[in-house]
């Protein structure tokens, strides 16, 4: 690299700039140093003058004590203000955590509700219920039961974690589960000794439309990482109890009316041939 090289010149200019800034900074420091020396000398002079005269010394002493007291008061005020700000910060942080959790819960409820009502296909509704139970509640072994209104019997129509045929049939109003379904409110029990024991439920969520039983979700086992039920889970139980029931009811009605429509259409086609 020669001294005529533009890169060399630019680099040299850069270095000179840095040195100039350093020099300027040093000059500033020296000026500041000079000013402070002057102030210090003035203070020394005052002290020496005051030391020669008791009245002046006393006056100076009083001034200093007043100044110290004023500074101490200011310090106390600032500390109190700081404590107050810290408390407010902690409150905001706590509130933020609460709002985050609430937001999370609302998102879960919204998604669950959305999925349930996004279809009028009965099989798709059941599939959504199964997904919600696995992914949002953390159920590992469970059955989705539908009620036969004529016989009053609840039979599993969808499940996870065990074969469908192994889920027991439930008579509405009878036995542990039958009574829980008839109660229209989610019922929780302690986890069974053996996970997936179909004779021992962990939670029963009755599905009802206007207090008219439609079915139930009965959980017999939770995922390993799920230690218990949270407030969100109870909110989901409440939501499922209403919305899953409505979704199933609506899907069934739609399916029935679609079949009837097809039948009537076929009849009309026959008559008009």
């Amino acid at each position, binding site marked *: 690299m020669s001294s005529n090289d533009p890169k060399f010149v630019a680099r040299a200019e850069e270095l000179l700039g840095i040195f100039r800034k350093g020099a300027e900074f040093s000059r500033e420091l020296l000026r500041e140093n000079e000013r402070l020396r002057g102030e210090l000398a003035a203070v020394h002079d005052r002290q020496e003058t005051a030391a020669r005269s008791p009245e002046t010394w006393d006056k100076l002493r009083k001034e200093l004590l007043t100044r110290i007291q004023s500074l101490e008061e200011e310090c106390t005020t600032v500390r109190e203000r700081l404590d107050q700000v810290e408390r407010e910060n902690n409150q905001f942080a706590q509130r933020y955590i609460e709002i985050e959790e609430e937001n999370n819960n609302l998102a*879960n409820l*919204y998604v669950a509700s959305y999925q349930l009502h996004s279809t009028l296909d009965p099989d798709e509704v059941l599939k959504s219920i199964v997904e919600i139970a696995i*992914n949002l509640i953390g159920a590992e072994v469970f059955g989705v039961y539908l009620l036969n209104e004529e016989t009053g019997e609840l039979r599993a129509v969808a499940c996870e974690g065990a074969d469908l045929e192994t889920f027991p049939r439930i008579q509405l109003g009878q036995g542990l589960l039958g009574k829980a379904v008839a109660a229209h409110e989610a019922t929780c029990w302690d986890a069974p000794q053996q996970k997936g024991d179909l004779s021992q439920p962990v939670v029963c969520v009755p599905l009802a439309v206007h207090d008219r039983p439609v079915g139930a979700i009965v959980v017999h086992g939770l995922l390993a*990482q799920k230690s218990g039920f949270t407030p969100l889970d109870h909110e989901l139980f409440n939501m499922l109890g209403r919305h899953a029931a409505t979704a199933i009811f609506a899907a069934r009605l739609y399916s029935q009316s679609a079949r009837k429509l097809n039948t009537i259409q076929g009849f009309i086609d026959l008559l008009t041939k």
Partner: protein
Amino acid sequence: MAKYRVLIVEDSPTMRQLLVFALRRLRDVEIVEAQDGMDGLRKISSDHYDIALIDINMPVMDGLKLIRLIRDEETLKQIPIVVVTTEGADEDRDRALALGANEYLTKPIQANRVLSVVKGLLKDNG
């Protein structure tokens, strides 16, 4: 143009929607969804992604196989992978991490936990 592109590979529509909800809180993010491992592989091979969230139990191709294929591919091996799964056993976690997953989250998920993990990995990758 979005700053980050996130791929979600998950067969459950409920879960996909929940993850999208959580990740939308990131600024400047574009989220792409895939409904099984094969769909995920097609998408990750044909476009650039800054991070992938992958379920394990999926039809057509499971998540572990997908992770293995991603890590075997020279152009894809640096992509951070977060596993989001129902499998909570330690051996499942160890297996996924051994195959190359960066983080392992179990369902049911907490949205802020997902967000925190994704933010951390995106920051680490610059």
